[in-house]
């Protein structure tokens, strides 16, 4: 076991999968000689050459389409949106082509779309968004969003080996801030499985990616006040791990769903509806959603801080919910 950063985990997963399978290749903007805007692909161009680490023109739609075509011919392309915000340029290729090939004519489309996403990095309205919610309404896609190096590496490897198109949401804020132990040997993290990363009895916080760390911070504060918080890291957003969600809610009976996308229309509404449809009788209080404000992501650091969910928001909501 060695301790590495979240960014290293992504880099290592790419490196190992490329070494392991010659069908795996990378495409994206500045990912070659430059090593990627965030250096996720650093050194891979030198190691695997220009035919397996391909710098593309500034056309997300173009290289996504090229990746889909290559995947249909048996390759396993991993493409990088330089910022997740730019995925909207490739929207049609992803939702109309990649997501529907298998349904329409049985063709498998094993592409991975890596998307550095999320705020708290002072990137402004065009470089801080969380677009995962846009894709939750598109059957045919898989969506993962790890919160730590172990899951980041294991989920990326699982995504590359998966025969369906996978959107891999990697959080920019976590890249160099979060470190963790990762096994030396080959492993994957199964797509579709959530994980309880902190056990508790009084309430469950269901969350994923960077917000997991906000939840952990809140749980520490709450523990000091005698409130025991369970944290469920979703890890995969589609398909949702209903079993995992229901098990935790049945245990604590009170739920907060915490996510970084704007509150309206986010994954929180979907999870809340599932809980109330399937296990209503286990609820001992209202289901609470905590999301970002319903505005574009502000550029000003103070405004951005106001915009994003904070540990304090979770603590306040949790106390209210536990007292309910």
């Amino acid at each position, binding site marked *: 076991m060695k301790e590495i950063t979240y960014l290293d985990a992504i880099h290592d997963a790419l490196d190992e999968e490329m070494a392991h399978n010659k069908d795996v290749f990378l495409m994206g903007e500045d990912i070659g000689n430059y090593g990627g805007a965030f250096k996720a692909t650093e050194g891979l161009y030198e190691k695997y050459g220009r035919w397996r680490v391909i710098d593309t023109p500034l056309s997300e739609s173009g290289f996504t389409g090229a990746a889909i075509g290559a995947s249909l011919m048996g390759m396993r392309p991993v493409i990088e949106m330089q910022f997740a915000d730019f995925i909207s340029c490739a929207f049609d290729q992803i939702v109309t082509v990649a997501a529907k090939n298998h349904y329409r004519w049985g063709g498998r489309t094993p592409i991975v779309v890596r998307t550095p996403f999320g705020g708290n990095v002072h990137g402004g309205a065009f470089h801080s968004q969380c677009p995962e919610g846009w894709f939750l309404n598109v059957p045919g896609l898989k969506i993962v969003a790890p919160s730590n190096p172990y899951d980041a590496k294991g989920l990326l490897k699982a995504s590359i080996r998966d025969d369906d198109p996978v959107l891999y949401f990697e959080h920019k804020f976590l890249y160099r801030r979060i470190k963790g132990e990762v096994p030396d040997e080959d492993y994957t993290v199964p797509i579709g499985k959530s994980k309880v990363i902190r056990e508790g009895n009084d309430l469950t916080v269901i969350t994923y990616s960077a917000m997991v760390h906000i939840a952990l911070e809140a749980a520490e504060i709450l523990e000091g006040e005698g409130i025991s918080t369970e944290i469920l890291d979703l890890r995969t957003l589609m398909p949702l791990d209903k079993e995992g969600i229901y098990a935790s809610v049945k245990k604590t009976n009170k739920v907060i769903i915490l996510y970084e996308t704007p509150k309206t229309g986010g994954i929180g509404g979907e999870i809340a509806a599932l809980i109330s449809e399937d296990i*209503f*009788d*286990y*609820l*001992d209080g209202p289901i609470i959603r905590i999301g970002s404000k319903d505005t574009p992501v502000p550029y000003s650091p103070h405004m951005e801080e106001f915009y994003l969910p904070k540990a304090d928001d979770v603590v306040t909501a949790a106390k209210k919910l536990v*007292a*309910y």
Partner: protein
Amino acid sequence: MSLKVIMPQMGESVAEGTILKWLVQEGERVAKDQSLVEISTDKIDTEVPSPVTGILQKILHSADETVPVGTVIAEINELTGEVTEEVAVEVKTPVTQSARPAQVTARIVEEEGEGEKRYSPLVRKLAREYGVNLQVVKGTGAGGRITKQDLSGYIEGVQKLKIPSGPEVEEVIPLTPIRRIIAERMVQSIKAAPHVTTTFEVDMTVIAKYREMNKDTMQKSQGVHLTYLPFIIMATASALRENPVLNSSWSDSGIIIKKYINIGIAVSLEDGLIVPVIRKADSMNLIELARESQLLAQKARDKRLKPEDVHDSTFTITNYGIAGSLFGTPIIMPPHAAILGIGAINKRPVIINDAIAIRQMAYLSLSFDHRIIDGAQADRFLSKIKNTLEEWGSKSEKVPVTESGFGGVW
């Protein structure tokens, strides 16, 4: 194809069922209509047949679990001959049965009944399971709401009170669904209906002789064991026809007189009591009544009763005399207006024309709902039954015995 097996709806008002026993284990093959699982609801215990032939892939709720109607309790992988792996994974046959609107109505009524107070779904579920009256639980949540902790604290407290001396000297037998429903019904009945019991002594000598004379023939030609019960059912059905007010239900908008006579027969089971029903009892002859009552009792003991076997009775007969009881004061089964209890039939000295004779005597007791029925009506009804039984064979009840068995139209 993977097919979901759901907890079936076993009657209008049934909201949940308890799994008693899986008759097929995971991984085993099951044939269409083969019994898959034994379930118990507040109405009946029964076996659920498999909807298809296939492999029982997954048991989702194990024995002793109680789940709402409509819950998926198992998955069967249907064997169709040409199942490919992909189909098995991706095609799920939709289950068409869904919860009835009746349950929703019941729930709304319950909420209104609780006035201003609101309870979380979990609190209401626990209160239901443990039979707690939420009005007496103190709430510490926001605005005095009862939280999960308040309720589990209360339940623990009550349980401690109930078992002060520990498990060495006392034992708590968990309530089975049937026990719980009997308790609910009996309390409901005794609270709502002012009970009065009236008792007549009936001379069964004629019936006893008649029975003695015919039972072997009947057994031989019809395969039916002739007991006293069908005679009493027959007499009761005819008395109900003459006194329709006994065949009724109380409602706030008026007394509902039922034009059909469906007589429920109380059958005692090892762990409770169930009342299968003989439909249109007034249109059946003695042999039919004997056969039907025997069949239903057997089905009840074998736990093979279907929902329709226990629904829609309009009057009850309970035969505690079998166990030796002389007379009782039975509790009316809601929503009936009355119940007839049959005491033991014994030889007793009786005075007839100032001489002492030995006769087969029985006490018949009728408990009735005094909101609907007055004493005189009840006694008129009971004396009609008495007369029919004592004068059996003197009128149209005569059954000619022929070579081929029993004939005659009743």
